[in-house]
C-alpha cells in the first residue's frame, strides 16, 4: 500500500478529529511514536503474513497427512511440523522488518510530530533540505548504511529460507480445522481484514463527502500518467538489471564458487539496505557538479526507483532461475541451445514468478 495513502487513512481514523478518537485514551496522539508504530504495523504485517505463508507452503502434503494419520494433537503438530519450518525465518523476518522500519522515511516525516520521534532517514532529509549541510547528511547516511548493512549481512549469512522468494505451487491437501478452531481462525482473519481495510474504507467515505461531480478529474490525469510512466520505466529497467545481475550468481553457483556466489548476490541486493534516502544523497552529491538536476530530476527519480526495486526483482527471480539451473542446466548445455533459446526458456520460467 502506498505509504502516504495509508497515512491519510490513519489520520482520518486516528487523527485529531478521527472517527475512532472517542474509543482511544485521552492522551492519544497520532503524531509521535503511537502513530509511527501503528503505521509500521499496517505496512509490515502483510509482508510478515506473506513470508510466513510461504514457509507454511514449504511443509509438504505428506507431512500434514502423516500428522493427521498419526493423530498428532494441534500442539504436537505445531511443535513438530510448523515450528521447525517457521523457526529459521522468524529471526530473519524480525530482522528485516526491523531494517524496513529503521529505514522508514515517509511515515516518520508525516507522523513524527517533532524531534523526539525522528529517524536517521528524516535527519538526512532535514540536513539536505533545510540546512544544505552535505557533510552532515553524508555522515548520517553512512551511519545508517553501516547499521542497516551490518544487520543485513548478519541476517543474510545466518538466516535461511527464501526471503521474498516466489511462492511454491499451491498445495493440494491441507487438514481442515475443527469447528471451534475453524471459527476462531475465521474470526482472527476477519479482524485482521477489518484492521487492514479500515484506513482504505475511511478514505472512500472521506472522498465521497466531497463534490465528486464537479471535481477536476483532468487535473489528476497528468500526475497519474507521469507516475505510471515512471513506474513502468523503473519496473522494466529493474527486471532487465535484475536478470543481468543474476547471471554471475548463476555462473558462480554452477562452478561451485560459494564465496563468490554469496558476494555477487550481496552486491545484487545491497541497495535494499541502502535506503532511497542514502542512495539519493550519494547520487545527488555525485551528480550535483556535473548535471543540472532540476532539468533531469525525473530521470534521477527513475534511476532511484529502479535501484530501490532491483533487490526485490533479484529475490523473486533468483529461486526460479536457480531451480531451473539445477534441473535443466546440464541438459541445456548438452543440447547446445543458442543464447536466445536459453533466454526464452528463462523467460518462461520467470514468467511464473
Amino acid at each position, binding site marked *: 500500500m502506498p505509504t502516504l495513502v495509508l497515512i491519510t487513512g490513519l489520520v482520518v481514523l486516528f487523527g485529531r478529529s478521527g472517527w475512532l478518537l472517542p474509543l482511544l485514551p485521552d492522551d492519544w496522539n497520532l503524531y509521535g511514536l503511537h502513530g509511527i508504530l501503528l503505521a509500521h504495523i499496517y505496512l509490515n504485517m502483510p509482508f510478515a503474513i506473506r513470508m510466513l505463508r510461504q514457509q507454511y507452503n514449504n511443509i*509438504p502434503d*505428506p507431512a500434514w497427512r*502423516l500428522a*493427521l*494419520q498419526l493423530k*498428532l494433537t494441534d500442539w*504436537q503438530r505445531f511443535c513438530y511440523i510448523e515450528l*521447525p519450518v517457521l523457526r529459521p525465518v522468524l529471526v530473519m523476518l524480525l530482522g528485516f522488518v526491523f531494517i524496513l522500519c529503521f529505514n522508514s522515511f515517509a511515515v516518520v516525516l508525516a507522523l513524527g510530530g517533532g524531534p523526539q520521534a525522528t529517524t536517521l532517514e528524516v535527519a538526512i532529509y532535514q540536513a539536505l533540505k533545510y540546512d544544505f549541510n552535505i557533510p552532515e547528511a553524508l555522515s548520517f547516511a553512512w551511519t545508517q548504511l553501516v547499521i542497516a548493512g551490518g544487520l543485513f549481512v548478519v541476517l543474510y549469512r545466518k538466516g535461511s529460507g527464501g526471503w521474498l522468494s516466489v511462492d511454491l505451487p499451491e498445495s493440494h491437501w491441507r487438514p481442515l480445522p475443527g469447528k471451534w478452531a475453524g471459527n476462531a481462525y475465521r474470526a482472527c482473519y476477519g479482524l485482521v481484514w477489518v484492521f487492514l481495510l479500515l484506513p482504505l474504507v475511511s478514505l472512500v467515505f472521506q472522498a465521497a463527502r466531497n463534490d465528486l461531480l464537479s471535481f477536476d478529474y483532468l487535473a489528476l490525469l497528468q500526475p497519474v500518467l507521469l507516475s505510471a510512466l515512471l513506474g513502468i520505466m523503473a519496473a522494466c529497467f529493474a527486471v532487465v538489471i535484475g536478470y543481468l545481475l543474476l547471471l554471475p550468481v548463476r555462473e558462480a553457483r554452477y562452478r561451485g564458487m560459494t564465496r563468490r556466489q554469496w558476494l555477487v548476490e550481496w552486491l545484487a541486493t545491497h541497495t535494499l539496505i541502502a535506503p532511497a534516502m542514502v542512495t539519493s544523497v550519494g547520487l545527488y552529491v555525485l551528480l550535483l557538479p556535473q548535471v543540472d538536476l532540476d532539468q533531469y530530476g525525473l530521470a534521477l527519480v527513475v534511476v532511484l526507483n529502479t535501484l530501490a526495486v532491483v533487490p526485490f526483482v533479484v529475490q523473486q527471480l533468483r529461486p526460479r532461475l536457480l531451480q531451473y539451473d539445477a534441473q535443466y542446466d546440464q541438459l541445456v548445455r548438452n543440447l547446445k541451445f543458442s543464447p536466445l533459446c536459453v533466454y526464452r526458456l528463462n523467460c518462461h520460467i520467470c514468467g511464473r514468478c
Partner: protein
Amino acid sequence: MLKIEALKVRRDHKLLAYDMTIAPGERVTLQGESGVGKTTLLLCLAGFVEAESGAVSFNDEPLLTLPADRRPVAMLFQEHNLFEHLSVIRNLTLALQGVDEALILTEAGRLGVDELLEKMPAQLSGGQRQRVALLRTLLRPEPVVLLDEPFAELDAKTRELAADWVQEKVEASGKTLILVTHQDEDVARLSQRNIIITG
C-alpha cells in the same frame, strides 16, 4: 467387521467402485493393475480421499463421516512416511506415545533397524525407511491396519523377515489388515483372502 458397501470414489475423472466385507482380524491382500484404484481405496478408508457415495463402517460405526484423525485406522503410505527433520527415534516416539520404549527397541531389533535409531531419515535407504515406518504403523493401537506396498523396496530376505513380523503382530493383536501388493509371494505368505480389483 469392516464393511465397504457400494463405495464410489472419483479419481482423475474415473469413477471407482468397491464392495467388500472384511471380518475382524482377517488379513486381506489387494491386487490389480496399476491405476486400478487400490491405493485410492486405502486413502479413502483412511480419510484422505472423499467418497462420492456408498458407506464404510467398522464394527457398525460409520467411518466416512469421521475426519482422518478420528478413524480407527493406521496406514502406511507408499512413500513419505517419516518426518525428514526428525531423527528415526523421534519419529517413532512421537507416534508411539504410551508404548514402552523397551518394546520399540526390541521390535526395532527384530526388524533390523535398531542401530539406525539416532540417524536422520535422509541417511536411511528406502528399505530401512520402509521398515521403520512399518514398525511404527504396526505398533500403533488402531484396530485396522492399511499397508500400501510395504515391502516394495525390500530385498528377498528382508521381505520375508518383515512379512513374518507383520503377520505375527497382526495375529497377536487381532487387528484387521488390508495390504496392497504386486507380489504373489506376499499373498502366499500373509493373506487369508486375496481380492483382485479390476476397476
